[in-house]
């Protein structure tokens, strides 16, 4: 009882006396928890909404049957409907139809229209039924009726009974808005039509996107699924709804996990701050504790006190963090959308849901890491012999154990070993662990490095007569490196991560820029406003375009999606003319490729993206089977190319091979190289004058490059924000530890003032200390950050996004940050020191406590 009172007194007095540091530490924890929690909230809200939206499209089906490519022949439908064991078969045709006038937003200009048979869908996906006007029930079967979700109506700015024009291939289709899809999810932009009408109006006769099955009662789903898969053969995939969820989850998994990792980094930096606050508080209060010990406090009581202090920090900070995180998440969702502007989850409008479990989880994480940060100082406080600690000057001995380099070296070694791990669960777990260990090791090594560096420096300097202040600075840094290093833990952590991210992002950006130049060599790209998977240009239109004057080179591209694995997102198949002699002239190849003369005879070559190697194990020289054309064909993997556009995989093949296999002569995209005397504008004008010219989507390659980079920058905007937060926390740490240290050193400064050190010299001393420390921190941070960037570029990126890139270091940018950091750290140090020299000189030397 009494010990609780004592604990409370001690805690309260400590907090009251050093409220500045308490606030800074709380801000650090709160910011860390807030970042982590808000990212979690945003991610899970977006993801849940996204998967709920995709789930609402497939209703309560037990199984889904899809083709390998986006569409398959409808003749499967009666077969499945009649299949023993099937209670209901719901045929669905799903098309992404381009909306005229919405073209400016390249990633987001299509309306998903779902064609359903009302009577079948009613039993499986009742949410998708359109709501016709009173007395117009037959609109559900009408040939021109389109039902729109509220979000779609808002987006298209139409109301019931309005008519809506859509572009289909090279034609325009006019539909009537017959009503709403009232049970669509908030923000979900979909239209619903009669399936027969959709097939007809959108020129997709005879095909379906999927068939959803409801099985009869008592049928074993797994066994049925296995039998059906076998029965349907390679051309189809049978998917359970759980597979579907996984597929959706896979689409954004890498993005979500990487963002979560960054958020945890913010929390991690916060932990260092707690650690340094607590450590410095221990140093400052060594004599208090020694006295308490001498008065009869047990070691355990002391330990408990310190941990209780940390826990109190953690509780208050985490609670603040949760509130802050929730607010940030709500604002971010409101203004940036659930994907924070990256367009990862298009067409949804998520809302934040507070759930106790995750809030509790993040509270516990915050509390746990804070306590963790308190434990080392607590142990040190408890271990100190009171007699020794009571003596003044013994602070130097505090935390001496931390400077033992073996712990750091073990961390670094372990990090090195972890980088060699293959991905776990397709995630770069090893890479992330290595980053954490690198950081821990690097920070643990910091006191050792600081001590060694300044000792050496001091040795050098002793040979010459150096100014007193400089000697003081060097001596302190050399002989009390632990305290110095503690101050820098946060800044080291945040700066090294900033360096790492900067190098990674710049490597990525430069690679993408180069890559865009390679993959967009033509001057103009012409597309139809394609709906679905059918090529928009029939051969006639292809000839019309190729026949226009002023074109140097006209290439035709056919692209479509393929499902190779039902649990993974679809891959892209590109059929295009590819240089028969050397594919490198067409594709941004990696070093893995085989020259044409070494190909096996009769083999159709394909070139696969790096993701295909990682995800599907397609290696150069392999012969693989792809569902192209009526029967799955055999293909020879002739090379691996870089694809920064599709992390789920892409395959290129020769257009002639594709046409031979499928008989499909239509194309989606036409790349046009212009003759020297033809300007882009003239070319566009000529294209527009074609009969179908108004319905062409014409892009200049420069615009496409700019747009791609803009999207890239936008998707990394959050990263930048998180980095700034991390650095901010780091600077807070510098401020906190410097103010703590200067307060602890108030007697030292008092004495110095007595013996004739000028006030400004003390400030210089502080600035020099801060600056030199930060300089070392920056140096070490750079080394550490560079190592981490190697992990990010060569391990994390290939393992999570399946693409490789060369390393580019943005020197100027980093230098700029380093200077800014150096100056702000010095200013912070001086600012923190102002208090120490502001006139308490006389009292300072008299104070023994």
């Amino acid at each position, binding site marked *: 009882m009494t010990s609780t009172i004592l604990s409370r007194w001690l805690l309260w007095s400590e907090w009251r006396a050093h409220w500045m540091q308490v606030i800074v530490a709380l801000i650090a924890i709160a910011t860390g928890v807030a970042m982590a929690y808000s990212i979690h909230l945003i991610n899970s809200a977006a993801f849940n909404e996204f998967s709920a939206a995709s789930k609402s499209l497939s209703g309560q089906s037990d199984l889904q049957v899809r083709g390998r490519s986006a569409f398959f022949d*409808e003749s499967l439908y*009666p077969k499945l*409907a009649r299949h023993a064991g099937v209670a209901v078969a719901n045929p669905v045709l799903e098309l992404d139809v381009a909306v005229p006038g919405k073209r400016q937003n390249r990633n987001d200009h299509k309306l998903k229209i779902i064609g359903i048979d009302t*009577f079948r869908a*009613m039993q499986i996906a009742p949410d998708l039924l359109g*709501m016709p006007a009173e007395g117009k*029930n037959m609109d*559900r079967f009408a040939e021109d009726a389109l039902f729109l979700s509220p979000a779609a109506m808002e987006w298209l700015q139409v109301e019931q009974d309005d008519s809506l024009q859509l572009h289909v291939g090279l034609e325009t289709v006019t539909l009537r808005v017959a009503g709403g899809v009232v049970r669509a999810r908030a923000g979900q932009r979909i239209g619903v039509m009669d399936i*027969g009408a959709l097939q007809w109006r959108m020129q997709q006769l005879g095909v379906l996107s999927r068939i959803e099955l409801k099985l009869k009662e008592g049928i074993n789903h797994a066994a049925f699924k296995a039998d059906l898969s076998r029965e349907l053969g390679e051309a189809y995939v049978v998917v359970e709804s759980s597979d579907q969820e996984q597929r959706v989850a896979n689409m954004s998994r890498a993005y979500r996990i990487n963002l979560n990792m960054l958020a945890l980094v913010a929390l991690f930096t916060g932990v260092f701050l707690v650690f340094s606050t607590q450590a410095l508080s221990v140093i400052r209060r060594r004599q208090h504790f020694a006295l308490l010990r001498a008065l009869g406090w047990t070691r355990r009581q002391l330990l408990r006190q310190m941990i209780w202090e940390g826990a109190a920090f953690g509780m208050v900070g985490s609670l603040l963090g949760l509130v802050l995180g929730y607010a940030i998440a709500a604002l971010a969702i409101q203004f940036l959308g659930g994907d924070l502007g990256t367009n990862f989850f298009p067409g949804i409008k998520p809302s934040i849901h507070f759930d106790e479990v995750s809030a509790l989880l993040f509270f516990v994480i915050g509390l746990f890491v804070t306590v963790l940060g308190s434990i080392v100082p607590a142990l040190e406080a408890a271990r100190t012999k009171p007699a020794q600690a009571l003596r003044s000057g013994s602070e130097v001995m505090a935390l001496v154990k931390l400077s033992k380099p073996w712990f750091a070296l073990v961390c670094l070694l372990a990090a090195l070993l972890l980088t060699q791990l293959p991905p776990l669960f397709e995630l770069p777990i090893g890479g992330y662990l290595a980053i954490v260990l690198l950081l821990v090791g690097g920070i643990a090594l910091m006191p050792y490095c600081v001590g060694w560096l300044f000792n050496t420096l001091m040795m050098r300097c002793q040979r010459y007569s150096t100014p007193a202040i400089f000697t003081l600075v060097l001596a302190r840094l050399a002989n009390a490196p632990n305290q110095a290093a503690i101050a820098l833990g946060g800044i080291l952590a945040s700066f090294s991560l900033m360096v790492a991210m900067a190098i990674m992002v710049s490597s990525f950006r430069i690679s993408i820029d180069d890559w865009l130049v390679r993959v967009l060599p033509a001057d103009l790209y012409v597309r139809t406003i394609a709906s679905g998977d059918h090529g928009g240009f029939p051969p006639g239109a292809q000839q019309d375009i190729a026949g226009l004057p002023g074109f140097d080179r006209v290439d035709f591209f056919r692209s479509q999606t393929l499902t190779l694995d039902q649990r993974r997102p679809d891959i892209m198949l590109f059929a295009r003319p590819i240089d028969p002699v050397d594919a490198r002239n067409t594709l941004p190849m990696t070093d893995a490729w085989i020259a044409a003369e070494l190909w096996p005879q009769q083999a159709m070559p394909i070139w696969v993206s790096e993701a295909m190697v990682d995800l599907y194990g397609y290696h150069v020289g392999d012969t693989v089977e792809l569902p192209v054309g009526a029967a799955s064909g055999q293909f020879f993997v002739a090379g691996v190319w870089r694809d920064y556009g599709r992390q789920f995989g892409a395959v290129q093949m020769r257009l002639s091979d594709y046409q031979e296999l499928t008989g499909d002569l239509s194309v989606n995209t036409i790349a046009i190289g212009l003759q020297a005397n033809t300007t882009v504008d003239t070319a566009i004008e000529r294209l527009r004058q074609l009969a179908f010219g108004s319905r062409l989507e014409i892009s200049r390659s420069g615009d496409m490059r700019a747009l791609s980079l803009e999207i890239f920058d936008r998707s990394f905007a959050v990263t930048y924000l998180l980095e700034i937060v991390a650095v901010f926390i780091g600077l807070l740490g510098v401020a906190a530890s410097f103010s703590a240290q200067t307060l602890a050193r108030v007697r030292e400064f008092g004495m110095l003032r007595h013996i004739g050190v000028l006030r400004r010299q003390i400030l210089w001393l502080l600035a020099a200390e801060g600056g030199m420390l930060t300089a070392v921190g920056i140096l070490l941070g750079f080394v550490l950050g560079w190592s981490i960037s190697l992990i990010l570029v060569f391990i994390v990126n290939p393992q999570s996004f399946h693409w490789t890139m060369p390393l580019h270091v943005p020197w100027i940018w980093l230098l700029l940050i380093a200077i800014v950091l150096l100056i702000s750290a010095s200013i912070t140090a001086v600012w923190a020191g102002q208090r120490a020299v502001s006139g308490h000189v006389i009292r300072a030397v008299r104070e023994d406590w």
Partner: protein
Amino acid sequence: MKQVEKTLPRFGRFFVALFLFMACLLTMQVGAEPSRLQQVVPGRQLVFPHDLGAHQDFRIEWWYITGWLETGDSKPLGFQVTFFRYATDQHRENPSRFAAKYLIIAHLALSDPATGKLRHMEKSAREGFDLAYAREGDTDVRLDDWSLVRETDGRYQVDMQTNDFGLRLSLTPTQSVMLQDQDGFSRKGPEPGQASYYYSEPHLSVSGTVFRNAKPVDVRGRAWLDHEWSTTYLAPEADGWDWVGANLDDGSALMSFQIRRKGGGKVWAYAATRDRSGKMTFFDTDQVEFIPLRTWKSPQTRAEYPVAMQIRTGEIKWELTPLMDDQELDARQSTSAIYWEGAVTLKRNGEPAGKGYLELTGYADPLAL
């Protein structure tokens, strides 16, 4: 939950409307486009077996079988089997195999006094892919695994199963086809277009199997088949109708209906009897009267049905007593409307005369739900 409650009545409403449209006697809404559907005109000679099949040029058509069955231990059962074909008058140019040109809707109901309940099930589908169709030429209707087929010897085969009940019956005609009204031209109202082509097949001898809780029971019995097709049906002032079709013990048959006027009274009424020798007696609107004897209020829908009825056809008074009171079809949860369709026994002028089916529609106000 909330959403479900909110939207289900809407589905219900839709199908109430659709159902009334087709099975019951509602006026047609003719679209802006000129319809290609044909009108029912008097004087057309029905040709068999061709007219036993579907008539795709008419808006709506149904085959309607009701009857009494007896299990091996002499327990009575009532059954009702209906197939509707409905022309949407849309998608005429649409080459898609999914084009919703015709819709097929089917009802199955089983009245079992042992449980005091009516079991029923509805299905709907668009015609296509041979999954659902109503063929021309002879009776051949299918909706997924439900089918009604007339074999060349005139026997009808009905096969309709659900998860927990169903029937598989063979119906053999014992009498000739009974053409209603003016040689199969059946007027439904005062206007010339308000009519249908209508024939019945009374006294079908039934044998087969009934499934209750997935357990088969052998049954025998007597049934009545109606086949009717039309494009424009009834006066807009119609509120609903009462219909009865009965196989009488002496081998004769009775069919009678009245179309009630909104707010009371009747729009039209008709009755016909045919004796064993084939002699038809007709009664017109003035001669036919439906007099409720006893009402039953459905605890589920609060609708009140005159389940016991006296029908006067000329001088004859028929007294109808239901096999059981609760023979209401409340299909709001799935696809259909609320009506009462039940097995009844008949007395002629106080004497037991036979068994039949009574249909009472328009008593529940779906909008009040």
